[in-house]
């Protein structure tokens, strides 16, 4: 168990050692986002911006314009909503290689409540041209994503979590931004998940196989640019799809999958996600349960889409 933000912190230190152009910035959450780990090692290449996210993201654009590779971190809610126009004009419109790091993604932030739970930011940033969105499922993947996103020419949003997350991938597992990972093969239904929900999808798979259902599990860590080929193939071969994410069902990863499938391979589909409401305080486990983000919710949805497939 390890939070994905820790994977980011470790990856950033590695980058600090290997790439002198990498710089880090933070908006008064230096310890929380783990940018502080970089600051301790490379103080000259770290810039604190105080509580001014708009200023920080535009300044990140300026650093990118003179050849730096800035990783600018804060909580996901502030990185997206608070600085959206700055990201739109200063970063995405100019297609600059700013790495926007949003920690405390999802409802599992817990007790801080709705203001601090980023459940709409994948959508807010996905709709911007040139943007890449990466949602790692564990700390290993977060470390790899941090290192690999330097190779992406344009802006990247890295969505990270606050709490310890189960380790699913191995250090040696291949990871490529934009290439979905098929974790389990199956023929009756496809479950596409990202972030914390990948673990739930794997747990759902165990339940489903007890019922004699063969599920394909896909870790769609890159909602944008989306791996159309893998998704369309899975939909065609299994005939039913469930998506699962710690985000609103509007505009998130599930919507991205639905946009692809409705054009290329329409099949019965259900989205597991938060339905048109704000979050609230509670423990992470309580909240995941209340908002329908557990393996048993996925199992239920999988059975429904299989039923629709048969009745269709």
């Amino acid at each position, binding site marked *: 168990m390890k939070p994905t933000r820790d994977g980011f912190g470790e990856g950033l230190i590695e980058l600090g050692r290997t790439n002198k152009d990498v710089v880090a910035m933070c908006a008064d959450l230096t310890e929380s986002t783990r940018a502080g780990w970089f600051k301790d090692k490379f103080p000259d290449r770290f810039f604190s911006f105080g509580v001014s996210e708009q200023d920080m993201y535009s300044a990140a654009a300026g650093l990118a314009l003179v050849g730096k590779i800035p990783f600018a971190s804060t909580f996901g809610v502030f990185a997206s909503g608070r600085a959206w126009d700055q990201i739109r*004009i200063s970063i995405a419109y100019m297609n600059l290689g700013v790495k926007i790091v949003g920690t405390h993604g999802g409802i599992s932030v817990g007790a801080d409540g709705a203001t601090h739970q980023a459940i709409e930011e994948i959508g807010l940033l996905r709709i911007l041209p040139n943007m890449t969105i990466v949602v790692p499922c564990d700390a290993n993947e977060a470390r790899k994503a941090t290192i690999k996103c330097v190779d992406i020419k344009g802006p990247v949003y890295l969505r990270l979590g606050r709490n310890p997350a189960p380790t699913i991938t191995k250090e040696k597992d291949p990871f490529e931004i934009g290439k979905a990972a098929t974790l389990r093969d199956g023929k009756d239904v496809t479950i596409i998940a990202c972030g914390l929900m990948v673990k739930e999808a794997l747990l759902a798979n165990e339940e489903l196989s007890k019922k004699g259902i063969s599920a394909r599990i896909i870790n769609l860590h890159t909602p944008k640019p989306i791996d159309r080929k893998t998704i369309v193939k899975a939909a065609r071969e299994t005939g039913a799809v469930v998506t699962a994410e710690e985000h609103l069902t509007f505009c998130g990863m599930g919507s991205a999958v639905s946009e692809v499938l409705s054009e290329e391979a329409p099949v019965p589909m259900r989205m597991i996600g938060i339905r048109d409401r704000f979050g609230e305080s509670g423990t992470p486990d309580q909240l995941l349960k209340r908002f329908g983000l557990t393996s048993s919710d996925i199992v239920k949805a999988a059975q429904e889409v299989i039923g629709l497939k048969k009745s269709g």
Partner: protein
Amino acid sequence: MKKRPDIKELKKKAIAIRKDILTMLERAGSGHTGGSLSEVEILVALYYYKLKFDAKNPEWERRDRFVLSKGHGCPALYAVLADVGFFPKKELMTLRQLGSRLQGHPQLGLPGLEISSGSLGQGLSIANGMALGLRLNNNGCRVYCLIGDGETNEGQIWEGAMTASHYNLDNICVIMDRNHFQIDGLCCDVKEMAQLKSRWEAFGWHSIEVDGHDVERLMEALDEAEKIKRRPAIIIADTVKGKGISFIEHNNKFHGVAPKKEELKQALRELDKQLKKL
């Protein structure tokens, strides 16, 4: 210190740039006339005296950076960039047309342009980022950023003002085109804007007030700003919106409206008269 160019030549240049601006805008049929005309001398002092650049090599690493934060003032910048040789002058006549590199608000990709802009308030922060990065590179490059006065309604300007002084950015110089108007009217009526100089000083800036149409004073102010160590400098350039054309000066109708054909003719006649007087 670099030798200053002949003042009369610079005045001629300003008139020629104003002609280009008005001609482009009339051709385009829309665009920001008032705020383009007010910033002409500022751009002249920068591009014909202060800035280090190489029009043949726009990406030259050791160039100074000019950041147009008030993106709507781009017709003036386009005219200057073409005149100093970044792209052919005839391209000016494509302003605001489909497929043109001269977009209604600046878009990166036009040689000589350093940023895309148009959403106000972001340029100073971008300039700060550049200044921080250039300081790490330690190559002596400076960053100049032109903002509007109405633009300082944006809170981000003040966030940027704090950042520049916090980081002791003495390689940045902001120039404010203080033309006293914004879209809804006089700045002071839209949102109180008194004590501008002391406001910036309170934020830790070295602050200089000049007549923004006096090229000689502008050059002196730019030199003074460069000498300031360990803190940023701002030149508050007092200007006239629509400067140079009798019926456009102080006439806020021309904030976002281009001159019509007849208006252009009269404007060009006025500018020719000014040229003869020099």
